[in-house]
């Protein structure tokens, strides 16, 4: 009988310890996730900025407020210190997506300049819309995607549909985009 209470105490402490350990392991995972740069990207968007001519720019929408042609929008960051090469890369990716056999709705492309208006002069050579300024919410999302070396693909309702790692070659990038933009 004299061992009942200590054993009960041990059992309760063990249960408490295990429960705390489980909670703690989840907190440690959250801690590491919070320390890692830009792991969390919100699913909603605020696609709103200024284009290379300084004009207010939103995606092309249909009257029912879906993206035009029930399409998608690919958002990525372009870097002013490597601009010609990156414009060639994305032009080639866009050509590759457009010329694929896949039947898909309209894909809009936004290249977010990492240096404000410094990329504007290249708009004439780019097959995508260059934007130097966005609303703060979307600019932080773009910066987070850049930290992760990702392009973001928004679905027809403007919600984040896919995070696409930037491939080393345009052909690989287009292969990553195509499955996400096909008709449902």
């Amino acid at each position: 009988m004299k061992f009942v209470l200590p054993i009960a105490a041990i059992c309760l402490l063990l249960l408490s310890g295990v429960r705390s350990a489980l909670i703690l392991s989840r907190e440690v995972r959250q801690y590491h996730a919070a320390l890692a740069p830009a792991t969390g990207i919100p699913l909603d968007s605020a696609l709103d900025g200024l284009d290379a001519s300084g004009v207010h720019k939103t995606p092309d929408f249909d009257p029912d407020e879906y993206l035009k042609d029930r399409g998608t929008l690919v958002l990525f960051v372009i870097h002013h210190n490597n601009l010609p090469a990156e414009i060639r890369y994305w032009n080639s990716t866009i050509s590759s997506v457009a010329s694929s056999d896949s039947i898909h709705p309209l894909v809009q492309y936004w290249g977010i300049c990492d240096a404000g208006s410094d990329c504007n002069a290249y708009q004439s050579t780019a097959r995508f819309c260059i934007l130097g300024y966005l609303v703060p919410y979307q600019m932080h999302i773009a910066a987070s995607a850049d930290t992760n070396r990702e392009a973001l693909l928004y679905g027809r309702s403007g919600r984040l549909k896919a995070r696409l790692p930037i491939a080393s070659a345009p052909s690989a990038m287009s292969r990553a985009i195509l499955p996400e933009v096909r008709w449902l």
Partner: protein
Amino acid sequence: MRIAPRRPLEVAIVALIIFNVLELGVSFRLRSTVQPNRPSEVFPKPSGYLSNGVFVRFPTAGCYVLRVSSDHCGFCRLDEVEYTELVQRARNSGCETVILAPKREQLESNRETSEVLQIQYIDFSFGRALVPYATPETIILSGSGRLVWFQEGAMNQDGLTQALSALGRTSD
């Protein structure tokens, strides 16, 4: 308390108590450390397009007070008194004050005054430093853009006291 080795049950109880206390300690430490929406430690000098389409690059100032706010956020109205006092004290200290809404049309342009400008569009470097996922958020930067203090959520009197104290630490 002396623990005799011949009493293994007592040893086990003490060990488990220590284990539980350690777990609580680590958990408390983690919760006080993690701030998922913490802004960057260094900001560029605030700049961007105002809601009226005019580009502004703020002049060099002793410090900067940034406020992320929205008309649709009830909590943003809770600390208007504290925020107004902070702005007045900041202006008296030679600081620039800036309001930003995370998204377009979240702030009426009449919030903008000659003393407090409302930036609507920002560039990449500013966007990377600022984490505008929650409103209200109040940020105090030194003149060189170093993060001195920030608070996510409405300020109470304690928050205001901390903010005013932070204004005194903005010299680089």
